[in-house]
């Protein structure tokens, strides 16, 4: 399929301004007659739905939680970037653009990223006006911190709960539109299919999660803001409900899925404690500013209490291998290094799959009080979960899946390859290339929802002003609905002997081992076969209790796991195809002699977008060539 990126012509810094002044508008009278469906009420979805409502469109918004305020965005801790340059430390739109492109290992579209950097400043203004209580300094102005190894302080934050506060802001704007009747909110509803009429997205099929009823909803355009798919690994820092179903159903209806193999593994999470583990908890990256990462030099020391291991027997491996950046190397580098030392048998803790993050020196240097002021809440959380006191013994940490850069392929307007279907936030692939910088996901979600889609969707909707209200009696709705019903009944009727969680864990193990931090072509080819077998086994042996027409969380999970397995197969295809190492994707065969990632810009400076062919094991690849006209491609080096 030919992928048209719709990037505007002209100078990079003027593209978005020019686009905005030439995009066709929809008159207020026409907006009143146009319906938009927004699936998802995280930062991207809630901000989009609220803004569409303010503009006068009729909006239907959906989420599977019991309230839009509980979307996974709520859990983001660290902060949100914006090129405000309030600290006068030399930040600018260009610098944020450049850092994002470079951080993404040159695998993102320049024009999208520049636009993101441009609107970042408006986001902060908007959020403050909504009452988001960002941290302030004693002069009453907004405070910033430096995040994720960049050289400027451009990260705005609200204690360790930035995502919560931003989401509550977007949710309040959404609630205002709900009260006005501009947005109709469908909570505890799950989208289970996309409906297309004459090739255009015209609605969705959703299940009311309380009654089990299957509903048809029509609209002139559909926006998916349904988040990321990190839960394909079973264990991740994502919320339990995060899933790929909405995007996957759209993929099966013709939306191409881009760069599925780009996953971000966060280096500082609380390690797995045992088989019972259901999710992993992130420990903010800021800890690496003062904590030192180490493991014992000798395997025999691994079982000793950390404080009994003398200085000369410790290996501060990040400081040793990367003297220039030390403990502050980017996420992917720090994660891989932890994997290597534990593979060597030098991991610590009960399971041997962890490394130390030690604050002993920081406490000596700064005093316990300062350390407590900086990280007290994180130390408390750590202690509550592990029952260990990080003031007295080092934390144990290990990398965990955190974010998925891949997602539905979108053009400059955030339109997918299905006309009338848009994707925003973590659900699309657009801005982070092969690796996302810290504090940039919140920025992207709100940029898409508040400032990008409200303009770009007009370009499509201006062609729909004569289209009548979508008739949900159209045969396309009937067809999609009966497919959804058949699929659900098929699941219920299996009545095998394995639980959904059994399968989800099995899937996660394969993905983590073979499509995680360190990947190899041959092993992934085998793993893909295993996934195909797992899919068949799932459809033959899964057991779902209860009934279709009731509140049935196991049934919800089953549908999601079925889709995640298929996604896993596609991730393998994508990772096998990409014969290079870039960002979050590390192929053992494509590394320098020192074991560092080796990009292949000649062959792989493209977006890999996959088309569904009817067989989940046989997707078809299309390529969008990336053009770099404003930055020079460089090798990342942190030595």
């Amino acid at each position, binding site marked *: 399929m030919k992928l048209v990126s719709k990037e505007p012509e002209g100078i990079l810094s003027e593209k978005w301004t020019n686009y905005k002044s030439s995009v066709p508008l929809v008159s207020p009278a026409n907006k009143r007659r146009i319906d938009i469906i927004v699936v998802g009420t995280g930062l991207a979805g809630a*901000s989009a739905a609220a*803004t569409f409502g*303010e503009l006068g469109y009729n909006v239907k918004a959906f989420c599977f*939680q*019991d*309230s839009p*305020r*509980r979307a996974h965005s*709520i*859990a983001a801790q660290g902060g949100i970037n914006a090129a*405000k340059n*309030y600290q006068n430390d030399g930040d600018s739109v260009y610098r944020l653009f450049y850092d994002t492109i470079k951080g993404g290992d040159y695998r993102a579209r320049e024009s999208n990223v520049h636009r993101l950097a441009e609107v970042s400043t*408006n986001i*902060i*203004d*908007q*959020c*403050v*006006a*909504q*009452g988001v*209580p960002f*941290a*302030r*300094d004693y002069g*009453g*102005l907004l405070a910033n911190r430096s995040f994720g190894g960049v050289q400027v302080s451009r990260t705005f934050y609200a204690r360790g709960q930035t995502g*919560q*506060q931003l989401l509550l802001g977007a949710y*309040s*704007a959404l*609630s205002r539109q*709900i*009260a006005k009747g501009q947005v109709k*909110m469908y*909570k505890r509803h799950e989208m289970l299919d996309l409906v297309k009429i004459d090739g255009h997205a015209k609605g969705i099929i959703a299940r009311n999660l*309380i009654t089990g009823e299957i509903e048809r909803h029509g609209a002139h355009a559909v926006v998916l803001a349904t988040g990321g798919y990190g839960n394909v690994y079973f264990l991740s820092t994502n*919320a*339990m*409900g995060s899933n790929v179903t909405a995007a996957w159903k759209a993929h099966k209806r013709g939306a191409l899925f881009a760069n599925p193999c780009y996953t971000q593994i966060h280096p500082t999470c609380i390690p797995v*404690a045992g088989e*019972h*583990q*259901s*999710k992993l*908890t992130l420990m903010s990256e800021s800890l690496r500013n003062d904590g030192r990462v180490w493991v014992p030099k000798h395997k025999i020391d691994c079982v000793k209490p950390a404080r009994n291991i003398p200085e000369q027997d410790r290996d501060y491996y990040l400081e040793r291998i990367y003297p220039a950046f030390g403990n502050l190397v980017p996420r992917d580098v720090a994660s891989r290094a932890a994997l290597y030392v534990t593979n060597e048998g030098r991991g610590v803790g009960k399971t041997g799959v962890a490394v130390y993050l030690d604050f002993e020196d920081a406490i000596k240097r700064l005093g316990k009080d300062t350390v407590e002021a900086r990280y007290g809440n994180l130390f408390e*959380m750590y202690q*509550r*979960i592990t*029952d260990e006191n990080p003031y007295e013994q080092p934390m144990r940490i290990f990398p965990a899946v955190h974010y998925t850069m891949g997602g539905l392929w979108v053009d400059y307007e955030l339109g997918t390859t299905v006309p009338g279907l848009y994707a925003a936030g973590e659900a699309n692939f657009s801005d982070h290339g092969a690796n996302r910088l810290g504090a940039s996901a919140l920025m992207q979600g709100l940029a898409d929802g*508040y400032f990008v889609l*409200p303009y770009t969707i007009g370009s499509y909707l201006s062609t729909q002003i004569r289209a009548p209200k979508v008739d949900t009696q159209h045969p396309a709705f009937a067809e999609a609905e009966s497919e959804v019903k058949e699929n659900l009944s098929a699941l219920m009727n299996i009545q095998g*002997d394995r*639980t959904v969680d059994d399968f989800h864990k099995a899937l996660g193990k394969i993905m983590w081992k073979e499509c995680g931090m360190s990947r190899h072509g041959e092993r992934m080819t085998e793993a893909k076969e295993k996934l195909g077998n797992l899919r068949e086994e799932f459809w033959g042996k899964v*057991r779902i*209790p*209860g009934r279709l027409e*009731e*509140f049935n969380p*196991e049934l919800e999970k089953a549908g999601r796991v079925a889709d995640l397995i298929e996604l896993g197969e596609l991730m393998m295809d994508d990772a096998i195809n990409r014969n290079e190492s870039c960002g979050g994707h590390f192929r053992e065969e494509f590394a320098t002699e020192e074991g560092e990632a080796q990009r292949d810009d000649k062959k792989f400076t493209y977006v890999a977008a996959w088309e569904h062919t009817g067989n989940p094991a046989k997707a078809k690849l299309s390529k969008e060539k990336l053009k770099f006209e404003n930055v020079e491609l460089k090798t990342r080096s942190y030595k």
Partner: protein
Amino acid sequence: MQLTLRVWRQSNPSAKGEFENYDVYGIDKDMSFLEMMDVLNQQLIKEGKDPVAFDHDCREGICGSCNMYINGRPHGPWDKTTTCQLHMRAFEDRDTIVIEPFRANSFPIIKDLAVDRSAFDRIIEKGGYISVNTGNAMDANAIPIEKEIADTAMDAATCIGCGACVAACKNSSAMLFVSAKVAHLNMLPQGKVESGERAISMVNQMDAEGFGSCTNTYACEAECPKGISVTNIARLNRSFIGASIGG
């Protein structure tokens, strides 16, 4: 550890619920409470029984989904801790643990431990926002805000909307929740313009939803997993009375 769980089972909103006892084995003290519930549910499914329905999502203490009433306390025995962050080391081997939903007339039970807290959303819809459209904002630093005020607003804003305050209150009052939201917005210069109207219409909606009145027992503050302070209730009362007198 081995435990006996006494769990509230109710198949739908109109069914008459009852307690059922279940024994679970092999519980590790490092498991979270919800991971222990996962063990129970896996066991029930394998036995061909209906698993216990409960709400949860982030399992990090921030989304406010989880809501179990454990041994007579919302979110269980640990202070300032949500159900999902409670860990099994809080219990002893062979303990019996009583697990119920958050009970209040305004939180109808959907199934087992899952309840409908939409009333909270409807209260927010009545004024839990600042009326500013996207694109209408001035520069974020145009109005400096005293750090102390910003911090106090943030303290109130950390409410996760879980409903433990309601479940803890003998009157099922939602004052702590409502006051936290009102205080957060009314304290900030951006929220001042609508402050009186906000207080009145949110309180009216709270009453319309059937939440009880506040008789200052402060059980809410004691059980709130986020340590939301009852001083917010005093702040709300001031806004409310001020606005009522004013007009």
